[in-house]
């Protein structure tokens, strides 16, 4: 998706931002100021464009590299994440970005962020099951996604109105408390489903899939879902997409739109105030900003996108459980992604979660998605596997014990190492290295390099 189509979608939230951000922020390209705005925007977004193209090409690349006729395809199956895993990276990456939006930019640790993810996910499933008043079971997915987002924004305003009087640890605790209240409520409330503790699935009254696209126009919709989504045959004559790939692209469109919206806000004057609050709230207040309003606004936006991520998750998996949505460890996963990717870098959270999911799949016990364990079973000889290490404990047992599905241990170790030695995360460290945001500095370097040569 070309970024110039994205700009109108930014809408009112960023509208006030345009002039000052463009005037003040662009230090590399004086000679380009005469260019029309969209060309400047395109140039500034060239890194984004490359990342989006890489993500867009991934299913094709995966298919080619793992094709039986490609040399080295066996290793690639073990190494590369499946497209299914990349879908998780997309929606959970969006959730981690929404977490980073409030926590990384204003410095208020939203440890109960799972509340918004859960609201989004439960809202979609309950709407499809006809359990939400005023919304019929057949409500288009895009509508329930938006309503879920608005609902989460309202919830964020409610939480924020009492919790933004507090700071630091207390803010983290009150958000955690609210999320746990919702967790207990949805784990025990018989109204949501037969067995609320195990979660709810989209029931028989809603057999059709969830469509992403323009509501009510069939031609502009594609159904997402692991098993029952749409397939696309013969696009441009030669492109065929399976249900999983269609879901990947459709979720990707929403994630890209959400990312650009948040990115625009972060680079607007509103976003500058968010950073000012993080750096020195007293001073931001002294300058005359109504910091409470800015915090409330940022929290509401963050909650909105957190719920959008939850809605995408529920729309794709067609079921939701309290442990997978409202539980505090879900917020913890977002925290992991944001820290590993780079706190306060927005896009970093997506890469942080990509790393997380990659490691999880790499160390998973199932052979279907590949991973280290089946690879070792294949490669290591039987005699080596049955070699005794200590007191009847063989190499094979060692591998089973320490690698089989224990990705969380290694994620934890990597996370602790990041906290201790790479506190700025992947993207933050890269930013410090190039001296600014990657989106601005990388093209500038290319330009300078081109000029010299």
């Amino acid at each position, binding site marked *: 998706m070309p970024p110039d189509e994205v700009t109108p979608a930014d809408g009112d939230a960023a509208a006030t931002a345009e002039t000052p951000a463009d005037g003040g922020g662009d230090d590399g390209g004086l000679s380009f100021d005469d260019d029309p705005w969209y060309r400047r925007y395109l140039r500034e977004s060239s890194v984004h464009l490359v990342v989006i193209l890489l993500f867009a090409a991934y299913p094709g690349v995966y298919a080619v590299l793992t094709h039986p006729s490609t040399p080295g395809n066996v290793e690639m199956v073990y190494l590369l994440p499946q497209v299914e895993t990349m879908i998780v990276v997309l929606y959970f990456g969006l959730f981690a970005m929404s977490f980073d939006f409030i926590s990384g930019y204003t410095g208020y640790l939203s440890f109960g962020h799972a509340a918004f993810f859960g609201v989004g996910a439960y809202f979609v499933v309950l709407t499809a099951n006809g359990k939400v008043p005023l919304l019929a079971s057949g409500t288009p997915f895009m509508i329930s996604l938006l309503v879920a987002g608005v609902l989460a924004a309202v919830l964020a305003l409610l939480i924020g109105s009492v919790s933004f009087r507090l700071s*630091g*640890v207390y803010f983290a605790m*009150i958000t955690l408390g609210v999320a746990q209240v919702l967790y207990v*409520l949805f*784990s025990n409330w018989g109204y949501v489903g037969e067995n609320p503790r195990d979660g709810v699935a989209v029931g028989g009254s809603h057999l059709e899939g969830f469509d992403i696209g323009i509501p009510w126009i069939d031609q502009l919709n594609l159904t997402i879902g692991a098993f029952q989504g749409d397939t696309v045959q013969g696009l441009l004559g030669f492109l065929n997409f399976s249900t999983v790939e269609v879901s990947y692209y459709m979720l990707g469109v929403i994630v890209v739109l959400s990312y650009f919206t948040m990115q625009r806000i972060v680079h607007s004057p509103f976003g500058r105030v968010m950073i000012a609050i993080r750096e020195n709230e007293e001073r931001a207040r002294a300058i005359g900003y109504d910091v409470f309003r800015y915090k409330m606004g940022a929290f509401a936006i963050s909650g909105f996108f957190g719920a959008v991520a939850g809605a995408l998750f529920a729309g794709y998996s067609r079921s939701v459980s309290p442990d997978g949505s409202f539980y505090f460890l879900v917020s913890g996963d977002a925290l992991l992604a944001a820290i590993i990717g780079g706190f306060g870098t927005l896009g970093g959270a997506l890469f942080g979660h990509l790393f997380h999911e990659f490691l999880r799949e790499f160390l998973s016990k199932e052979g279907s998605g590949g991973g280290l364990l089946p690879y070792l079973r294949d490669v290591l000889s039987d005699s080596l596997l049955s070699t005794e290490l200590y007191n009847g404990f063989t190499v094979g047992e060692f591998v089973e014990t320490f690698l089989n599905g224990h990705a969380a241990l290694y*994620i*934890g170790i990597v996370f*602790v190492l990041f906290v*201790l030695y790479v506190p700025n995360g992947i993207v933050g460290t890269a930013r410090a290295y190039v001296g600014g945001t990657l989106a601005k500095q990388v093209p500038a370097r290319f330009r300078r390099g081109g000029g010299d040569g």
Partner: protein
Amino acid sequence: MIDAVAALGPAAPGTLAQVDAGTVVSVLVDGLSKAAIYVMIAAGLTLIFGLMGVLNFAHGSLTMLGAYAGGLVLVVAISSGSGALTRLAVFFAAVVAVFAALTAVGAALEVTLVRPLYDRPPLYQILLTFGLTLIFDEFARMVVEFYGLQPRSAWQEAVGTKPEFLAESNAYDVAGAPVVGLDLFEIVLGVVTVAAIWGFLTRTRYGLYIRAGSEDAEMAEALGINIRRAFTVVFGVGVGVAGAAGVLLAWDTAWGASVPLGAETLLPAFVVVIIGGLGTFRGTVLAALLVGMVDGLMTYVFNSGIVEFPGLPELTVFLTLVVMLIVRPQGLAGVEEVGGH
């Protein structure tokens, strides 16, 4: 938590008219035993926060490790033929051993991992200890699975090592209410823990250092107190108390040694510490009493069928936290400035 009370006796069909002395006693004992557990799992957390300002997210996981370590001692040392006194003796030996081992672990963690982060924003200490939680939990799962135990459910062998007179099946009649021995045992241990920590804080030299350091760490240092060493000792002792509480939980059917025990104890410990006012031991004791009694009362309300919502006790506990933070953010015993932490 809910199961423990189910054992307390036949649930009376609930009308207020039927509240008699027996009901009051059983709710009181249940609430107090819960308060005792809460104070034990929260005491270490509040000690560490009070002096160092570090919110230890790994606290629950360390309780879980303590529960498994204590359970191991109990299972190895107690055979089916052991008498009640032997079992009690082994239990206290396990408490001492786990306390010593985890104090060492805590001190080592402070020196190697927490210390480099003191000059960073407090957020990083939360992050670090959260990462430690992941490592400890997954490590425990790895070891437990290796020995063929089910990591998600309570370790029944360890639960089964408690002496007959403490067992849930063996209730005593107090004012017409069936009271389980283990509940009384927990109350006694809770009182002993509070007294011990109180004595440590007010009657020992290190307690003096800690109180001085909590007031003003820089001033204490200027007066010649080795505040660094005090940090290490407090982190160690705090973690040790968490582990010792775990040994007791390994005997309790409602908890038991399991990997999710870490998260299950961490959240109530946070609630208690925050309600009490971060870092004040007196507040933590008061808050544990409050939360324990609320929990006990709501468990009764659910069990007697007045409210048919199974999550009621847990829900009320978290609601208490939220309401407390709105009404009195500094906590029961906290002072105003603490809110600025």
